[in-house]
């Protein structure tokens, strides 16, 4: 592998890592606060992509130059699409918490896990029922971006799109880190992770914090969905399964509950996958990548930043 090839792969790995990291954060936060794996999270990502599709279509019709009522520059439309999708997807997460998980808060953990899987299937099949099996094409939000001259660095092509995806992902992760460490809700999330029972007795509304945790995780999945759809603009009802499971692996690899861990493990997973595919035949990619992760977990069963018995939300 030449140096150019190597760095080209680094760039690709960063893009995939961004998707995994954003989704893994949702798994990890919910686990960290409520000690449950939200197995519907991958499908929340998928629903986010569909929400993104409709938001993007609507905003392009309203604001794109030539057709819209008010003309906005395409970067402004993109920002609006991401924000609106995050906002709407957060409600999907809150609904899942309210309807699916809250009634089971005192039930055995397995019930919640099964509920998550069922909610996932319900999402997949309802999207299938509503829009059919035909794949939908995500509209181009930044026309001309792909054909513009791309920045290169010593022969490595770093496309604008990848810069955008990685940049947005990093900004969102920093915002989340800030939120959890500096606001009263973030503090409440961490407190809830350590002792559920004491939290309401200090005047903190438990259910609201639980809903907010789901909202934040789902909003990040919504953002990931828009970014993902810009890179791979084909939507189908099962698109959340593989990506979702891989992000789940990243959450475990990072250490349950660890924000830093989920973010780093997401990127690590991107690197392992991409480099496995360059060294070995690409059909072996997942086999090799996940064998490596299995070996890591044998030696660090609680993940990179995980500790025994403290799978709790922390920075």
């Amino acid at each position, binding site marked *: 592998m030449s140096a150019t090839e190597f760095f080209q792969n680094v760039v690709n790995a960063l893009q995939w890592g961004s998707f995994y990291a954003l989704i893994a954060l949702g798994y990890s936060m919910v686990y960290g606060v409520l000690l449950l794996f939200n197995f519907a999270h991958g499908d929340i990502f998928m629903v986010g992509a569909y929400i993104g599709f409709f938001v993007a279509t609507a905003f392009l019709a309203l604001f794109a130059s030539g057709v819209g009522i008010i003309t906005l520059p395409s970067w402004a439309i993109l920002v609006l699409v991401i924000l609106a999708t995050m906002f709407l997807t957060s409600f999907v997460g809150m609904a899942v918490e309210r309807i699916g998980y809250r009634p089971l808060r005192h039930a055995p953990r397995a019930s919640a896990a099964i509920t998550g899987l069922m909610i996932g299937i319900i999402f997949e099949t309802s999207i299938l029922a509503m829009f059919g099996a035909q794949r939908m094409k995500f509209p181009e939000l930044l026309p001309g971006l792909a054909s513009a001259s791309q920045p290169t660095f010593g022969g490595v092509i770093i496309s604008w799109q990848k810069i955008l995806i990685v940049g947005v992902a990093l900004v969102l992760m920093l915002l989340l880190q800030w939120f959890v460490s500096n606001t009263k809700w973030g503090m409440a999330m961490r407190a809830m992770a*350590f002792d559920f029972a004491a939290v309401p007795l*200090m005047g903190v509304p438990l259910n609201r914090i639980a809903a907010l945790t789901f909202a934040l995780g789902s909003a990040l999945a919504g953002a990931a969905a828009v970014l993902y759809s810009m890179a791979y603009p084909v939507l189908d009802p099962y698109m959340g399964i593989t990506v979702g499971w891989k992000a789940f692996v990243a959450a475990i690899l990072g250490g349950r509950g660890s924000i830093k861990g989920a973010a780093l493990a997401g990127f690590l997973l991107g690197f392992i996958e991409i480099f496995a595919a360059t060294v070995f035949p690409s059909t072996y990619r997942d086999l090799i990548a996940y064998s490596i992760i299995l070996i890591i977990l044998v030696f660090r069963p609680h993940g990179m930043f995980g500790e025994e018995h403290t799978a709790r939300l922390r920075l």
Partner: protein
Amino acid sequence: MPLLEVKHMTHYFGGLRAVHDFNLSIEKGEIRGLIGPNGAGKSTVFNLITGIYRPTEGQVIFKGQNITGKRPHQIAAMGLGRTFQNLRLWRHMTVLEHVKMARYSKLTYGLVGAFFDTRKRRREEAEAEKVARDLLDLLGVYNVAHELVTNLPYGMQRRVEMARALAVEPDILFLDEPTAGMNPEELVEMMDVIRQVHQEFDLAIFLIEHRMKFVMELCQRIQTLVFGEVIAEGTPEEIQNNPKVIEAYLGEEVET
């Protein structure tokens, strides 16, 4: 009007009657004790009043408002602070964070305010920080403000818990066995701490205790709970000499 009033409170766990016809009336500034053997239902009484369980029958009236069935966080925010029998601290949060967390109900800024870091948010957070630091100072744990609570000795953790309970600006403080697991030296210190916060904030205090000496010295009135029922109520002297109380402690001598 009493600060806190409990009328005919009865609670069942399934078929088991845990508390039967419990009545209580606490005035502002009063220190009240609840004693009784293990499993008598003392902590259940606390959990019923603070909203963790909803009483099967009866009413709880706090500051003239019926709070029966209200959620624990609403009751806490109305001015009821609480500590726990086995410390319920958030192990990997700092001392200062514990106390600031309990200011939650006093912080009114919204999500938008947080993201745009408005002046209101800064003012409220600065205020919370100041209140928290003052409380830590009062309880003598200011110098460990940035330590994780896991790293502190037990007596100090108790003080942190007390500071946290005080941060909700309570009118009444519920202390569930504040001296559990303490050595005699720490016990004397805790007694001073309780007296100090009682004076400083003009609080009513309702406490569960096992150590007779402690209850007798601090409380103006004491109730004795046995199998969920109050078998005796009165001043420390009356309780000490009450044959039913002596019997309930199975011949254990009621030490003074």
